[in-house]
Every structure is written in C-alpha cells, then in structure tokens.
C-alpha cells in the first residue's frame, strides 16, 4: 500500500510520503493552472485520492520561446538580452555564464575590475531574485505581508542595480571580456546603507514569516527530498542545498571574483520546504557580505575600463572620454558581428534558483552553431512529479513555492 509514481512505488524510489491505498480508478483529476492565481504560466495536473495527491504531472511550456533556436540566428552578443529574458529579476546571473563560455572560446580573461563588477551585480540580482521567490512563496501560503514586504525591499536592490547599470531589470550587463559600466561615485555609500538595512530587515522577515508558527507548521516536513534522491533527481540550487548537498557552482568552479571574496554556502540537511526557505534566507545574508566586499574592492582600486584590452586598447579617444565622464564602456562596432574561433565551451553559474549551464558551440561564424541552455527551474521541475505525490493538495503550493519554480526560466 503506497503511493505510486508512474508505475513505480514511491517507497521503492526511497521517497517518503503519506501512505494511502492504491486506487486504480475513481481518482479526481484536478488541473491546477495555467490560468490560475497561484501557479503562473504552468499547469500541474494532479490526481487526488481524497486530499492526497497520487500523481502529479507538471505540464510546462506555456511561455516557451525556443531560445536555443533563436540564438542560432543571432550574433553572439545579441543573445545576451535574449537569454536574460529567461529570468529578468536574475538577469546578470543567467547571462554571465553565457559570457564566460564565450570568453572561454575567445580565450580571454576579463580584468579584475570587470570581475568584481559582475560579481556585485550578480549578488544584487541574487538577493532580488530570492526576495521575489520569498514573495511568491508568501502568497502561495496565504501570507500576503511577506509578498508585499519582499517586493518592496526588492525595490532597494533594483534601485542599486539601476544605478549600476542604467536599467532596472534587464541589465544586459556582462559583455565578452568585461562589463558595460563602472559604478557611479555615490554607489558604495548607497550599497553599504542597503546592506545595513537588509541585515536589520531580515530579522523582521524571520519573525513574521519564517518563525511565524503558522508558516512554520505549514512548511515543516513538507516535500522532503532526501539527499540521495536529490542527487538522483539532479535538483539544483537551494533545493539541493536544503537536502544536504554541498554543491554550488560558485564553489565547484569559481567564476568571476568568487574565488577571491569570502562567503559561506549555507547547507541544510532537513530537505523540507522550511529548509529550502532557510537556505534562501541565509544566502541573502551571504550575498550581503559579498556585496560589501565587492564594493570595498571597487572603491580601493583605481577606476579603469572594466573590459579586456583586446576590446579597449585600440579604441578611439572618444571611448576613453565617455568612460571618464559617465563610467560607460563603449563597445567597438566589431562587437556586433564578432566572429568567434571554432570551438566548444561549457560554463556554469549559480543563479538564485540554482545552477545554469550553457553549452556553446562555434563553427567560426558570427552566430552560434548551437547553444544549449539548461536552466535551474527546468531541472527542478522533476520535483513535482516525484516529490509532490503523497502530500496533500494544500501542500502543492508549498512545494511549488519552496522550489521557487519560475516558468519562463524553465520553458526558456
């Protein structure tokens, strides 16, 4: 007597779940989504036996844009704005690994200043994306205050990102060999203020949301993913780290400035929805630390164009003048239809929701031969199928919110 997941018993997979009788027919099939206040552009078809989910089938693709194909028709740099539309609140994180893959094919390394700038924006984006996730999570379990608060506080990070890049969300910030803009003069001060504000504010979040007895009761022991199963299902990001997997792309293969800044990767072992929320919560704290360090570094070091010499050394004097005046790195016209040498590269970066992987293949033309993107939400979608069965219908939003599933990112 156990929950069945597509012909296999859930207990055989080593997953826990509420025991129910096996029912051949008489299942109530409920379509949750896609036109649904909770789920966004995603449908989960669940079959329920009483209040217990016996089968869940994630039905994705409502916002699919075939980015991999579109990328094949566009010049290399044009793909950055395209790819960041996967997760606009996490724009730098999802595109930086594409840029790193390009840099690997070009065989160039960005200057340290560019690395720190990118790291800075990545962490600002990470906090913003985590807050976004928290907000959605809050609304999923009926906590509207968390929703409003995290969206209001996300505004602080969006404001910082706006001052850094000139755009609130779709920054298109990293470019092959560097970054597009240096920090404005008053940025470090504002960033430090924001960091201090967040440190204090997170305590309030904890009190009203994470340690709120109602919330805690709702999250504890829901959607448990044991460590072994987490590895088997290949989940990423906070979902994996909440299950005790010590994996973070920033740790496994440090990119940008992540091998120089000091931070911790919080890992929890409980594997339930509460642990996943706490991973994100602790990660925000670590991101604040990284922001502080990055800002300090940027302030200490002289302002110089954060771009590789290959794109800067031969640039006309106007380029330097604009950089002096506005901190803006102008692009060489060759950037538009730059030809990459033939080669293949892979790069990964840790977005807020987990690791994103780009496989880039160049055949020497100005457009990619093939770009393969595996986004974190796409890898986490499998959780619905294997973890949700056995829990109650009201646990579905909890699981959905706790893995911070983001349909546009999964659909690509």
């Amino acid at each position, binding site marked *: 007597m156990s929950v069945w997941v597509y012909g296999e018993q859930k207990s055989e997979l080593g997953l826990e779940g509420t025991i129910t009788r096996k029912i051949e027919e008489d299942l*109530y099939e409920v379509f*949750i989504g896609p036109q*649904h206040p909770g789920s966004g552009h995603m449908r989960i078809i669940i079959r329920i036996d009483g209040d217990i989910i016996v089968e869940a089938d994630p039905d994705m693709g409502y916002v699919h844009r075939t980015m991999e194909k579109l990328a094949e028709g566009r010049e290399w740099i044009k793909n950055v704005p395209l790819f960041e539309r996967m997760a606009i609140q996490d724009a730098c994180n999802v595109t930086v690994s594409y840029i790193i893959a390009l840099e690997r094919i070009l065989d160039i390394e960005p200057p340290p200043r560019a690395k720190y700038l990118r790291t800075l924006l990545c962490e600002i984006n990470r906090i913003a994306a985590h807050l976004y996730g928290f907000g959605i999570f809050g609304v999923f379990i*009926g906590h509207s205050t968390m929703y409003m608060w995290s969206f209001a506080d996300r505004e602080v990070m969006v404001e910082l990102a706006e001052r850094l890049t000139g755009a609130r969300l779709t920054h298109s910030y990293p470019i092959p060999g560097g970054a597009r803009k240096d920090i404005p003069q008053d940025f470090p001060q504002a960033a430090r203020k924001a960091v201090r504000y967040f440190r204090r504010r997170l305590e309030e979040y904890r009190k009203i949301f994470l340690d*709120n007895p*109602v919330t805690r009761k*709702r999250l504890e022991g829901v959607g448990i993913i044991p460590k072994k199963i987490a590895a088997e299902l290949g989940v990423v990001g906070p979902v994996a780290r909440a299950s005790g997997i010590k994996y973070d792309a920033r740790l496994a293969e440090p990119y940008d400035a992540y091998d120089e800044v000091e931070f911790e990767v919080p890992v929890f072992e409980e594997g339930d929805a509460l642990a996943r929320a706490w991973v994100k919560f602790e990660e925000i704290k670590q991101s604040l630390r990284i922001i502080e360090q990055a800002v300090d570094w940027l302030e200490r070091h002289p302002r110089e164009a954060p771009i590789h010499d290959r794109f800067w050394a031969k640039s006309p004097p106007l380029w330097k003048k604009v950089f002096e005046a506005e901190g803006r790195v102008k692009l060489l016209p060759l950037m538009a239809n730059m030809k990459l040498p033939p080669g293949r590269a892979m790069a990964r970066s840790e977005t807020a929701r987990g690791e994103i992987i780009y496989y880039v293949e160049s055949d020497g033309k100005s457009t990619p031969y093939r770009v393969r993107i595996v986004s974190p939400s796409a890898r986490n979608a499998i959780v619905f199928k294997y973890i949700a069965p056995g829990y109650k*219908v009201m646990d579905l939003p909890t699981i959905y919110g706790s893995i911070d599933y983001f349909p546009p990112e999964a659909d690509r």
Partner: protein
Amino acid sequence: MAGIIDLILSIIFYPPIYQLVLVGLTGSLVVVIFIIWFERKATARVQRRLGPYHIAPRLAGLPQLVADLIRYAFQEVIIPRTADRELFVLAPIVATVLSILPIAVVPLTSNPAYWPIPMDYSILVALALTTVSPIFLIVAGWASNNKFSIIGGVREAFVITAYEMIAIMSILSASAAVLTFNLVEIVEAQRIWYILLNPIAFLAAFLSVLMATSGFPFEIPESENEVVAGPFTEYSGLLYGLNMGAAYMKRFAFSILMVLVFLGGWSPYTPGEGILSGYLIPSLIVVAKAAILMMIFSLTRSIYGRFRLDQALEGAWRLVFPMAVLGFGLALLEAYLGVM
C-alpha cells in the same frame, strides 16, 4: 403629526424589523463596508503600501468599497450551463440571509419592551441559527458543478465540523457561569466583563469565529492557490458579492453575540425608557463594540498565512477544543464560587 411620527417610529423600532432590517441588513452592510475598508487599510499599512486611495483620497479611499459594491451589483451574473441553476442562485442568497439571522433574536437592550423574542432561551436560539448558513456554502459549491468548488465545499464542511462545537461551547460557558440561557441576564450579570473572568473561553470563541468566517489563518475553503475561490469559483456579479459578504456578515453576527456574552453588551450604559435611551443607544453601543471586535479580527490577515486543512482541524480539535472545555470548566468553577 406627532402621532404619525410615533407610528413610523414604532414601526421602525418594532424589534424584529429594527434588528433584522436596520441592524441586521443595513447595519451589517455599513459595518461590513467599513470593516472591509479597515481591513484593506490596516493590511496596507502593515504591508507598507497605501491601500484604497484614488476614490476620495481625503476620506482615505473609504468610498472605494461603495464603488466595489456598485460594481458587483451591476455586473452580469453568469450562471454556468452545467450548474444546478436554482440552487446556484439560491444558495448565496439564503446563506447571506441566514448569516444575519442570529442578530434578529439577540437582545440589544435590557428594556423588555424592545426584545424581539422572549429571552429565556435566546442564547440557544442564536447559536442554533449560526449553524445553519454554512450548509448553503457547501450547497453553493456543489451546485456550481466545478471541481474547485466541490473541493472548496468539502473543505468548508470539514471546517464547520471543527469550529461549531468550539463556538457553541465557548459562548455557552457564559451561561454556565451565570446559570441561565437568557442573554439579557448574562449581559446584566457582567459587572466585570466576562472576558476578564474567562479569557480562555474568549480566546476559543475568537479562534472559532475566525474559522467560521474564513479569516486568516483559517482561510482554507477559498484558498486561492489550489482551489481558485473554493465554493465561489463559478460565481460572478452580485452573487459573488453576496458570497464574499456573507462571511463578513456572519462575522458581524458572531461579533454581536460575543459582545453580548464577553464584552458586557451595552454596558456601561444603562438602558432607560423610551425608544432613544431604551433601544437606539444601547443597540448602537453593541454595534460599535462589535465593529471594534471585527477590526481586531481583521488584523490577522496581515500577520498570518493560512494553515493547511488538516493542521487547522488538528489545531481546532487538539488545542482550541480543549481550550473551550477548559473555559467551560472555568465557568462552572466560577458559578460554583459565585464570582458572577
């Protein structure tokens, strides 16, 4: 001339009419509008935003709810072809009427001339009437013939079974303490408000009323993330407005009952003779107290999320029900010691 005015007044203040139509329908409508506005404003304050604003910023957006009401009233009522037509239309109407019915049987004054019914068993009658309306929410869910509605209706049924016992027990603890079913005597007996003598019963009553009216953290039947709007998924227009308003009206009825039982009713005022001091003022005091109580109810929205269904039931049976029993025991003890 004076005779005509007297006649009109005596018709208006004929207790069943006054309590059902003026306090019940009109009063609850006004209070509900005010409370929904207050709830939105208070939640907005906690959530660092403005809330209703653009309709009359000087009144802090108060007419917004009137505008909403007008919108509901003039929206097209869509009845799905697969729904059970008669029940679909009837259920919200009956539920709304029944949710304010308890107001028609409670005393709003100690002056016997203005009692709507003989008061000897009024607390029992009022409590009995509160238990009728939720059935029609289940009927609404069933008549909609929609999966979300049915799930919501079933949830509602679960929640009813959980809160009803608690509500009845905790409110009846007052009559255990005073040894009467007469609401007037219960009110009169409160030299000290009963809430101070028996806070446990009050807390149990508070929680059960939250459950009864789908307040946070027990907003389970309409939990929008899984079941869209629960029993009301298929509703639109005025019927939807009735459905949503019914919960608040029910809360109003419960609040009046709680005010009478726990918060001293019309005290500190002593009703005198005549319509004005014998009926209007004490009833207004009761309504005002009920409104304040409802304002406290509405603060939970901004602090709590919602429980899972089984957790709410578990909490109700394991925590709140013993609490109600304890409150009842305390009431008996107080009766034995003769505190009240």
